[in-house]
């Protein structure tokens, strides 16, 4: 997460900034920002887009599904494929998430989930939309 020197940036809803152009965001006072935002190719989260409890719960479900050894690091950035999940694991994880959060995940949304964070964001969105 990028550190913004000397200020807290708040938005109406959590957003993830990607390829930001050098134009201040609406609601941001120029003198609060210590630097100009330049277009960069890496993603950075201005605020965590997914709730921590959601990320933790996803990590828990993933651990159980993949039977990961104790001490294996699973965090928001963890990619499912890097953890050794194959397609059957993935559908089971998605089903586990649907049951835990009482949501339905469309195949097209499920396909774009690469990391734990992606899953958590999608869940928060679906839960909010209920």
């Amino acid at each position, binding site marked *: 997460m990028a550190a913004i020197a000397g200020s807290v940036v708040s938005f109406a809803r959590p957003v993830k900034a990607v390829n930001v152009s050098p134009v201040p965001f609406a609601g941001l006072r120029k003198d609060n920002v210590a630097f100009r935002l330049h277009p960069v190719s890496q993603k950075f989260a201005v605020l965590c887009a997914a709730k921590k409890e959601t990320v933790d719960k996803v990590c828990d479900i993933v651990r*159980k*599904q993949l039977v990961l*050894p104790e001490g*294996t*690091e699973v965090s928001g950035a*963890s*990619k499912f494929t*890097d*953890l*050794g999940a*194959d*397609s*059957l694991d993935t*559908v*089971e994880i998605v*089903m*586990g998430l649907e049951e835990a959060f009482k949501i339905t995940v*469309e*195949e*097209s949304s*499920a*396909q774009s989930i690469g990391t734990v964070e992606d899953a958590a964001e999608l869940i928060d969105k679906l839960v909010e939309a209920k």
Partner: protein
Amino acid sequence: MHHRLLLRRRGAMPLPSPPQPAPRTPGVAGGRLFASLPSPPPLQSRREVHVWYLCPDELNDHSQLDMYKELLSPSERKNALAMNGPRLQKDAMLSRALLRTTLSRYTDAKIDPRSFEFKKNKFGKPEILWQSDGSSMEWPLHFNISHTSSLIACGIAMDTLIGIDVEEKKRKTVKNILSLARRYFTPSEVDYLAKISDSDAQQKEFIKLWTLKEAYVKALGRGFSGAPFNRFSNQLETNNRIQISKAAKVCNDSDSGCDYLSENWRFALAGLNSSYYMAVCIEDNSRGSENGSVPLGLKVWKTIPFIEDTLVSGTDAVKLIT
């Protein structure tokens, strides 16, 4: 067919006999190594599929593994290292080494395994990237890879889309079979599974259906959402043919998502080494009265690249189910 003999014939001098069985390290290095990938019998037609597989647990010799590592591109090596833990890293590395060596076999030994470049289609399906500057020849090779924790398989076809999926017969799902089927399969497939009272048998049939559906989706190359599992049925028919058909009432003609669920697909399902089910799917645009009656030709080799290749199809190791 054991190609290990090919290595022994090189050189006039017989090797001194080692005090114990020699470890399987190659006696050659670099470019000469590449030449020791014997050309397999060619793919006879678009209806023929060749599968090459290796078992990571059997490959523990460090110099062998280093040799395989050398074949990878820098980004492949980086991706392999990003995997969680040494075992997954080794599997990822071997998967790329298997792919590169397998492809090389089908180029009349003209392309070094290290030379291949790859790209992804817009859905993320990997394909060979041939140099467009006319400097290298091209072969109409299509491939697909499947992993289980104990076996990695690479399927090759000529001029046609291919998908392959291998799964351990005894793979236990965390979720209940019927709930998985209800969530992801078609109603007719759920009915089929629900009728099986023995839970082991039911689990095996689930895995068979799963590998068939996976193989199809991977052949299609449009990702899981491009052909949602519950929109098409794979029926294991009593005359041993696999029919793929659109799930009734799920697809209407205006639904563009179903455009690709055409019925020009041919399947083969086999038991492998009594521990796995392997499903292969290729696109088959040949129409006519013989559509479906000519089976897909399947040849399977177990390989330790550069060391030993063993043809296993035609033996008990490969039992065709369809």
